[in-house]
């Protein structure tokens, strides 16, 4: 039964793939990912507790939104299923940045897209945006990797291409 599952879901690459997957709360570990209040988050801390000594185990999660940096706390019974987001990483070459901060990105096959802005919203994001502007302004050739989860995308890291 288990092997059939994989054959059917691996046919498509992203069109039919679901954005999240249910996983038992007890198996989610620190530095993993989960969905909290509808947002994709990275788990910062997990602890288990019980109501009284003879109740059933519950998990307490402290997690941080990947895109906005907000902190959420969730508590669920350990046997409950939580959604875990599917996280995709894509790499593009940076071609241009316009005044409003929109970036022109080129994929490996030559297509470009211009709908992505420089990262913002959290401290690290702002710093990253700074770094990108600096390096781009200095004439470096840059490759950015974009983090995509639950329909949202944001630039995550930047690398300088060595000539």
């Amino acid at each position, binding site marked *: *039964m*288990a*092997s059939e599952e*994989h054959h059917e*879901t*691996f*046919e498509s*690459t*992203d069109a039919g*793939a679901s954005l*999240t*997957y249910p*996983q*038992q*709360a*007890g*198996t989610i*570990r620190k*530095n*993993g*990912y989960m969905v909290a209040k509808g947002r994709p988050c990275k788990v910062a801390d997990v*602890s*288990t*507790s*019980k*109501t*009284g*000594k*003879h*109740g*059933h*185990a519950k*998990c307490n999660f402290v997690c941080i939104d990947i895109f906005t940096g907000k902190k959420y706390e969730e508590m669920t*019974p*350990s*046997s*409950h299923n939580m959604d*875990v*987001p*599917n*996280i*995709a*990483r894509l790499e593009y070459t940076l071609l241009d940045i316009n005044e409003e901060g929109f970036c022109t990105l080129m994929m490996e096959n030559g297509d470009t897209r211009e709908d992505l802005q420089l990262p913002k919203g959290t401290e690290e994001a702002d710093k990253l945006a700074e770094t990108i502007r600096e390096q781009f302004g200095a004439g470096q050739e840059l490759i950015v990797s974009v983090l995509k989860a639950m329909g949202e995308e944001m630039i995550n890291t930047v690398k300088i291409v060595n000539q």
Partner: protein
Amino acid sequence: MDHQQIQALVEQACEEFKHPATQQRAEQVLLQFRRSHNPIPACQHILERSPSAEARFHAACTLREAAVREWASTPPEARAAVRSYALAYAAHHAGEAGLSVVRATLVGALAVVLKRGWGEMDAESRAAFFREVEAAAAPPDGPGAAARLRVVLEVLEAVVAEFSLATASAIGVAWDYHERCRSELEAQFLRQFFQMALDVARSTATSGAAAAGGDAGACAAAMALMCAVLNWGVRNGGGGGGMAAPGRPRGGGDGGGAAAALRPGQAWGEVLLAPGATDWLLGLLPSLRGAAAAGQLAVRARALVVAYCSLAGDVFPRPAPGDAAAASPAAVAHCGRMLQAALPWVTPAEGALHQALANDEAELLDGCRALSSLAANHKPAAFAAAADALAASGAPHTFAALEELTRAALAAGGAAGADAAEPWVVDATDMLLDAWSSLLSPQCGYAMAAVAPPRGAAERAARAFAALVEAGLADAAAGAHEDATEEEDQGAGAAAQEEWLSRAAVLARAAPAPALGLLADRVDAARAELAAAASSGRDASEALERLCWLARAAAHALADTGAGEMPLPPEALLLALSAGGPAAAAAGAAAERLSCALLEIAGLCLSPEARAAGAVSPRLCEVALWAAARWADTYLFPEDEPLPEALEARFGAAGGGGQAALELLAAAANQCLTGYPGESDLTGVTTGALLPVLVRRRAAAARLLSSEPWRALAGAFARREPVLARDLPQKQQRALARSLCAAAAAFAGDHSAGNGRPPGEGARAAGEYVRQLMEPAARELAALAAHAPAQLAAAAERADVQLQVCCLVETLRGALRATLPSTQPVLWQLLSGLLQPLLTLHWAFRHQAQ
């Protein structure tokens, strides 16, 4: 500036120091004075002339600091002069109460200066100095004589403290200088100090001056000096051959090891153990009870008694060889005297405890300390002989006193651990349990068989254990509604609880028939209570918690932890069971009953009605399986030594009892792994504690393989059912795979069983078993890796795929951990097929840290 001006300045600063506004400036002035160059003459001037006690104090401190700081630039006569000056001043002003701090500082300064110059002094000058010290007490009669004597004793005590490594001050010399001073003082002068202190104490005590307070504290000072000398070995950790003291410091309880052993060495035997050495102390003690019990004299006297109780080792003449279990008469006599001193502090037990709770617990605690030290440092035979001798002369028997006190302490909350209302009750109970442990542990020697505990101790132990069970159950029920903290279950709290229960187990094993029977009765009662609560819909937490406590206690009583050694039934139990006669039969029956009760608790988790009714909680299952695992490790199909008779009949290979127990536990494991989703602690105990024990022994594993529950578990594992393959935490999956594969050991080596199968057959069967278990997992992994790269990359981003791969890898790791010679070919074959897929997957998942 001349001395007069300096004095005025210092006095002024002392005044100003008292007011917050001028405090800082005054502090600066004083510090400046303290660091000034060659201040000693000015200090001396202030010490003699100034009316202000604070100024004198500062002068004394300055003198002390300067003496060390300017040592190099001071000529030898000046150094000696400082010493003599300090001595003379302290002796001269001995009687002035307001100057006690000044005196203490000067005495300390004297000690430091002495130590600093010790290296350059030869034997003659050292002896001369100590004669000078003793002479400072002269004249021996007349006004202030007692106070001067006290000062001399304080000086000697300061010297002892300064030369002892643990309390030496930093004087800017190398370590080996400190060590040399220490060993020289020990070899040349320590006994002399002790003798002097002993003489002073004895004379003031017997003349009644001490009790009446007419000795200006000389007796107390003498006793403090004696304690300091006796404790010399403890603080210096056994350096050199003289006063070695490898004591075992006990964590609980205040004030240095409760049962540390002081080993002064043979040479001290005369001065410490001669009858006249302690009679004066015994005569003094009765007058130090009641209202005087809190006074300094009483505190010192009790501390001295405790120090005497802690004597051990060569100071007692060694018994004749070949007679090791018997007690040397000197040890017995000493023990008896110390019991005579300490027993009044703890009897009658109820009254003493009541008094301690109401007023001051120091006396009771010192009594407990004394008892536990004596029990630890003397053989049980010696202790018993001393107790008997004492009882013969009319005092209560020590064992009876010990039992009553233990019961009273437990009733007052001694089992409550960290939450007790009065923490010292817990300390006292710990010390008493230590005493019991020392008394009841069977003494095993090289050449002799184990010796049973002393007569009379066993029944009392049984009663004490009954009290312990009640107290433990009450404490468990009281805590049933609180949340379980992490620390309690895993960290330091759990370790402390384990230790406590193992000491309680010593009590139980000393009198197995009543104690184990009591536990079995309580288990039945708790189960009935649980059923009643469940059927009427009430909250069953208290009953559950009680049952948990009982399961743990039963496991501790019946089995040792077996960590790092071959698990055998505990020595004490074996002793009781092999003694023969009706007592042994009763003990055997009780052990059997308790074992069955323990297994029944584990069986509770199998009953669906109980679960539905709320009579079974994950925690109960966890504790029950842990306890069953510990029991099974010792008693289920042991390979090396046969079980004692009674248990052999029930659980041995011949009867069906062992097989039934094995199947019960396997079914319980199966149920707990699959039926309690999300309870990772429970599954942790199952995979980590229970399953490894069940497969450890070949005989057990062989029966396991053919049993229904095991086949069900293995089948579910092989089919990669989600509850095992996905929902279990990854480390536990590893452990599960390991246990399942380790059971293959039962196949091989069948040649000795005489069933006619050739050896190769066993290996083949083992290989086949492992293949059936692991092949599906290997295939799954390979299938994943076989996808086209683009699909694989897309799949690698999916969280469920990541989890799947992690679990598969962990499962393989577990299986490999359990590789046996017979299964190696199969596993190798599986794995070699996976090498390429693993590399592929490794590349695909390169972004995922997990």
